[in-house]
């Protein structure tokens, strides 16, 4: 299996300190355990209700199993994916055990990953995007001018512009609830604790234990996603337990923060600029009169 399954819980960086918060609460986030998701979409509804998000146009049936939401968007900050597979939920243990049927319906509630290395935050030219004291990433709507740079920088396709509004919107991890010590709306509404909210260190321990249990039960497909501080975004503030490869759920298999390459990007741009200046100078210097 190519994804790591986190034998031992790793710790994610306390990114608030890097941002400059001297005094801050522990880094908070989501652990979405898709193995217990029942696809009720209560998270989608609770998110829309609490954050007063408008409907996405057009309302239509997609033909993608039970998923008529389609994707995360400027007005949809939780999205439940449904994947129908001809495959047993766990590996058969021997004769007479079919591994609990030959069909499985994977369900997973996707959300903004609140990356440790958040490209959206790095590229925002107005400073509208900021890191909160909880380590989450939030758009300040009174500052955003809708330039759309963050939309193209996000390796997960999370952020988007709300067309009639002109600004970019995304999951705030219910910042307004966090400051009052409340659980985010989606986690609060989740009836199976598929969405768990808490300090990331605790969530990571719980997730590692859950993967061990699932493996012992024969669900060998279980793996964590976004939990690894050694990955291309130094881990996510919202990580997942998946039952198949990430791309099956519409998640990038090895996302990378684009600004990791920024030193190289600037170097090449500078070299090209110097080449241009030198080339034009040479075009004048080579004159034969």
């Amino acid at each position, binding site marked *: *299996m*190519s994804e790591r399954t986190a034998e031992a819980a790793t710790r994610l960086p306390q990114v608030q300190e890097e941002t400059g918060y001297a005094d801050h609460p522990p880094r908070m986030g989501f652990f979405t355990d898709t193995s217990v998701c029942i696809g009720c979409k209560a998270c989608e509804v609770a998110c829309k209700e609490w954050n007063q998000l408008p409907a996405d146009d057009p309302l239509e049936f*997609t033909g993608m199993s039970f998923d008529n939401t*389609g*994707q995360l968007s400027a007005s949809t900050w939780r999205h439940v994916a449904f*994947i129908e*597979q001809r*495959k047993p939920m766990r*590996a058969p243990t021997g004769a007479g055990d079919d591994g609990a049927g030959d069909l499985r319906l*994977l369900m997973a509630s996707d959300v903004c990953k609140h990356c440790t290395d958040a*490209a959206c935050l*790095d*590229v*925002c*030219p*107005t400073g509208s995007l900021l890191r909160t004291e909880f380590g989450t990433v939030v758009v300040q709507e009174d500052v955003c*001018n*809708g*330039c*759309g740079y963050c939309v*193209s*920088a*996000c*390796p*997960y*396709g*999370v*952020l988007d512009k709300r067309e009639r509004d*002109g*600004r970019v919107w995304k999951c705030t991890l219910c910042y307004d609830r966090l400051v009052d010590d409340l659980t985010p709306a989606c986690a609060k509404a989740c009836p199976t604790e598929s969405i768990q909210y808490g300090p990331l260190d605790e969530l990571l321990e719980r997730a590692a234990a859950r993967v061990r249990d699932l493996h012992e039960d024969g669900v*060998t497909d279980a793996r964590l996603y976004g939990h690894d501080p050694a990955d291309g975004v130094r881990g996510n503030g919202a990580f997942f337990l998946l039952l*198949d*490869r990430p*791309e*099956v*759920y*519409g998640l*990038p*298999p*090895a*996302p990378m923060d684009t*600004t990791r*390459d920024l030193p*190289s*990007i600037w170097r*090449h*741009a*500078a*070299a*090209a*600029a110097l*080449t*241009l*200046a030198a*080339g*034009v100078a040479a*075009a*004048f210097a*080579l*004159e034969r009169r």
Partner: protein
Amino acid sequence: MNTPYPAAGNGRADGRAGGHGVVAEKEFASYYDRPILKPPTWKASNIAGYLYLGGLAGASSVLAAGGELTGRPRLARASRVAAVAGVSLSLAALIEDLGRPERFVNMLRTFKPTSPMSVGTWLLSAYTPLAVAGLASDLTGRCPALGRAAGYGAALLGPAVTTYTAALLSDTAVPAWHEGHRELPFLFAGSAAATAAGFALIATPLAENGPARRAALAGTAVELVAGRLMRRRMGMIADAYELGSAGALMRAAETLAVAGAAGTLLSRRRRALAVASGAALMAASAFVRFGVFAAGVASTEDPRYTVVPQRARASAPPHHPG
């Protein structure tokens, strides 16, 4: 151990990638062939147009300074006009593309080296007044020393104005832009030199356009080589530059560039040919910018450009076959 079942959760029954259906693909998994990335919110007319006009402006300022220093007043003036027209239209396109244009000034509340758009905003804020002052002084004859100084200042910033746009595009998750970050600035620099020189070929008499001819040839050569090199180095993502409307634009750009360069070579004594060649070079450069823009959009719309290279990276050694 993994299972014998197809891993493509919702891949098509025939295991082919969706979307264009043009080329048979190695099997990869996706969520109902849906894109993983969001396509850029930018409008092609505004942003590809800006990439082109910014390049025209920046390189023209360098040509103008050269004309000034070597006693070619008509080359200098024509290039100053191109620079001011280019940067003015650029700024208009940039502001028009914002979701909240009235909040453009929010760009100036901070300076962030991690954001090429922030760097570019400040760059343009410094460059534009210099270019305008240089032209105004030239046209009115007032404060000639200050005007020349402003023109040289614009020429110093001009190359950065033409290539920072490549950094702007590359510093994204858009596969066709990010993976080209080494060559894209050279592609833009070459195409900017070719288009500024193309304008000079159109606007200046034969007696003054020798440097423009050489700049046009060198710029076109850099443009062609950088474009080819970029596509060769980015593996399967190069498809985004070769299929669909992006492919058509890139091919048209190459054809026009070669034709324009050939015409330029033969135009030492033929004014009409110089004009036609200059127009071809300008068109080639514009097609390059629109082609690069379209390739980026296409690479966000098909999940294979995200999944296949990342999957290769994720399963690079040490890899347990699964």
